[in-house]
């Protein structure tokens, strides 16, 4: 690394950075700023408001805060994030990774094979993941899950109708947990063996080892992953939209689907933008913490 010394350096620097910053500026930052602007207007996709929107002050926000659908969508999103990202993809995944990882006095066979199988769900695009589950969780007697239940004499369950929210949560865990496990297992194996053995010689049980040695050492990685998966889960759209389009009723209308429907099915761009801005605020707060965690990496 060296400081910019000559005009030539400065020119190179600016010239090389500009394309990247321009792309980010036009397609990410401008829309984000525009979202804030638009959230104060009654911009619509059709009708009179489409051509000449005007300022409505905080009206979109007061409408959102008074809209029970928005409340329930927000709550549903928090539950979705808590269950699939925090519990499923972080806590549960870490526990299983601890089982999988090789450490002193604990070695399982076939772990590379398991790791390869576990990566498959993440490898499929959202659209295909949704199709796979549309078949697997089909609500009729012919659905794969229901045929399994039928073997033990349980009646068909209408997974995507009667239990839609639970089902899409499980589908999201299905997609995210394997990768998290493989990642955590690698992190656990990167802890020096001598560190772990010292604990064992002192007579620590596996549980004490986990709590006193492994978790404190891996705390930064776990936290970073937790933040990242939380943030991405807030933004999930395709997987759920493909499977249920937010239904039945609005049982699976997470915030991404709420925004999409207000903006593009009810044509209320202003309202959709306002909801987007609120989502953005939540994510930027989480993101600030994430960036703070990463501050030493620069």
């Amino acid at each position, binding site marked *: *690394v060296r400081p*910019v010394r000559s005009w030539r350096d400065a020119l*190179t620097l600016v010239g*090389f*950075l500009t394309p*990247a910053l321009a*792309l*980010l500026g036009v*397609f990410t930052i401008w*829309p*984000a700023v*525009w979202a804030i602007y638009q959230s104060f207007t009654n911009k619509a996709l059709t009708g009179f408001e489409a051509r000449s929107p005007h300022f409505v002050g905080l009206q979109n926000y007061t409408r959102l805060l008074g809209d029970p659908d928005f409340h329930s969508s927000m709550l549903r999103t928090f539950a979705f994030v808590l269950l699939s990202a925090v519990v499923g993809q972080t806590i549960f995944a870490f526990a299983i990774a601890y*089982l*999988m990882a090789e450490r*002193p*006095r604990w070695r*399982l066979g076939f772990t590379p094979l398991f790791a390869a199988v*576990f*990566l498959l769900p*993440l*490898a499929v*695009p*959202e*659209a*295909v993941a949704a*199709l796979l*589950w549309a*078949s697997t969780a089909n609500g009729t007697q012919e*659905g*794969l899950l229901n045929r399994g239940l039928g073997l033990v004499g349980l009646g068909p369950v209408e997974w995507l109708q009667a239990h839609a929210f639970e089902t899409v949560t499980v589908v999201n865990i*299905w997609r995210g947990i*394997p990768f998290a*496990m493989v990642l955590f297992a690698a*992190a656990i*194996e990167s802890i020096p*063996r001598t560190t772990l*053995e010292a604990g064992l*010689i002192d007579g620590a049980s596996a549980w004490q080892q986990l709590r006193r040695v492994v978790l404190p050492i891996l705390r930064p*990685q776990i936290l970073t992953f937790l933040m*990242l998966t939380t943030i991405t889960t807030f*933004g999930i759209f395709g997987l759920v939209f*493909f499977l249920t*389009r937010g239904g039945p009723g609005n049982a699976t209308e997470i915030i*991404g689907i709420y*925004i*999409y429907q207000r903006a*593009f099915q009810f044509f209320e*761009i202003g309202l*959709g*933008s306002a909801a*987007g*801005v609120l989502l953005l605020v939540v*994510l*930027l707060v989480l*993101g600030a913490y*994430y*960036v703070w965690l*990463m501050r030493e*990496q*620069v």
Partner: protein
Amino acid sequence: MSDELEIPPAVPEAAPRATSQAAARRPGVRVRRSLARTGAYLILVALALFAIVPFSWLVLAAFDRQASIFVKVPTAWTLENFVNLFTNQDGLRLIVNSLIYSGGATLVLVVVATMAGYVLSRYSFPGRRTLMLGILLIRVIPPTAIIAPLYIIATSLGFLNTYYGVTLVLASWQLPLALWLMKGFFDTVPIQIEEAAWVDGATRLKAAFRVVLPLAGPGVGALIAFIGAWNEFLIPLVLISDPDKQPIALGLFRAYISYTQVDWGFLAALSMVYVIPAVVFYVVARRALQQSVAGGLAGT
């Protein structure tokens, strides 16, 4: 990861022996440990089944002439669905479109991210750290949050329903991650390699491109960009309404929700084609990806 597995010799060899005395004093330990092992295997097998069972529809239906949404073993295995897919105009169109979007986005991204990553790594200037952290913060913005204004901007700039518009949007969404990756990659390439080329009379830029580019970094960035664009659903859903310009993800969705007559064999064959690059990608780039996500998203 597997490097780690090879290391053990000396220390672990000694360790079990040292502890076996303790184990001998407590005869229950051995039994308990093998019970724990069995339990661990059971859990892993259950999870592997959970991971893999949903794929059964895809694998069976793609080769079934009378495919339906249900999982069933074909009475006669056939490649007809694939033949239909590639001879049918719509099927081929979708695949070509996806290749255009992903290929274009990859190209743009590799060029742009390599350039920026290089100077971010090699020069120090005021605000560099803030810029890097700011780029990281942009990463947290999901497409859903700003899709509505993006649509309006696309309308006024006129890139709605265009190949280049969607390609650029897709590239820009992968850019923060790619920038970090490339910067981290250049950090690991010693400047001495370039300096050697300067001595040979190359200008600084020539040296950078001739020496550094052939290394593996941009390749990993390209893979990640390609697959990110390949999988994207919401952006084309909103920005592309012209059926001739749909990527595969949209084609699958529109075919799936057409209530009239869903051609399940076609859907399965198309899904299969759609999945292949993604799976190949994970096989090829698994280690790089783990680093990029473990460290990478976490730093390097």
